[in-house]
């Protein structure tokens, strides 16, 4: 299937816009000129801020004390937390 020419695309767009306008459904599209936009302030180049650096978040396991899921081991852990005044 041959590619549509720019003229054909423009004509189709115009036709569809007219159909929408006839139903009161056409949303007017503002252009940069309409809003008097200064391209110097738009997009990435217009942003005052620059990304200096990107770092991935890496899990740094410093090692934890493994506590067995038993009454005695859990009680010992609680005891340690009380002893070092974390609890209480």
């Amino acid at each position: 299937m041959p590619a549509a020419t720019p003229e054909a695309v423009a004509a189709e767009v115009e036709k569809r816009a007219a159909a929408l306008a006839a139903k009161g459904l056409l949303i007017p599209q503002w252009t940069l000129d309409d809003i008097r936009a200064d391209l110097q302030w738009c997009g990435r180049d217009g942003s005052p801020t620059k990304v200096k650096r990107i770092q991935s978040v890496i899990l740094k396991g410093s090692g934890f004390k493994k506590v067995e899921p038993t009454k005695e081991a859990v009680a010992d852990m609680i005891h340690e937390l009380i002893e070092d005044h974390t609890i209480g």
Partner: protein
Amino acid sequence: MTEPNRKGDVWVIAEQNDGELHDVSLELLSKGRQLADTLGVRLAAVLLGAKVQEHAQRLVQHGADTVLAGEDNRLGHYQTNPFAKIVAGLVQKHRPQIVIFGATPVGRDLAPRVASAVRAGLTADCTDLDIGEHVEAHTNQKYENLLYQIRPAFGGNIIATIVNPERWPQMATVREGVMRMPDADVKRRGQITRFTPDLAASDFALKILEHQSAVRKVNLKAARIIVAGGAGVGSKENFRLVWDLANALGAAAGASRAAVDSGWIDKDHQVGQTGTTVRPALYIAIGISGAVQHRAGMSEAQKIVAINADPKAPIFAVAHYGIVGDLNRVVPMMIDAIKKRV
């Protein structure tokens, strides 16, 4: 556009509501003090309200060298237009080199208005700030003593450092709870400059008819111990275990976003990137996998106990004590041990 003032002060925009100074203002002063000392400039706070004298003194005690205190009875409650007009006017007049706001609802509304008014750059939701140099890749131009605005991006999976080399002041909002709040130094002295803002009736486009404040159900930031539950808890009924352990310890109950989204607990209890950032003495994570967004809000706890059935859960990477097991068995064991010992 305001030209860079390399000798300008560091500013903290303090915040008060209902006559109370917001904690984040004091947290920002702590970081602001570091930045100002590094740059060799003064730290100033800007405070607007109906009555500000008492709070201005507190800002000095927490590190401000100077306070610009604007008083007007109409400024008792925040309104966008007058506050933005005053702060933008002060920025244009005094030309600070750095302006930081709390990433509170007020700060998130005010900061972009001010940045737009003075045509400056703004980085939102920073979790750290620092001073350093920057070399522009395209021009090889070197900038000294820029504000590094450090914040998580892409869902917290990366940390981005943002700079604003040219369009000053360098502005940022900073999340609550990520900076330490210093103790007040009651002997500290500073200069408090009171002024009456130049405001017209037309600046107050809105008339506040009624003011209602939702009372937060929990103050996680002030909690010494937090017991938090996540998706692994399984159900709202089972979340009772989290409350029971919290009650046994006299702790606050926290939650991951998954637990909050499941409706097991109110959003006020959420810890993490989209919740509260906490630094308790003890954080007990029950059934919390430890997604980076959650860890961002709790990894600075002094002690972390993680209870999870999955030995590969990322929460163990930040834990001091790790229990791999069924929380339905482990949590009652903990409650029992606490009741016997405390």
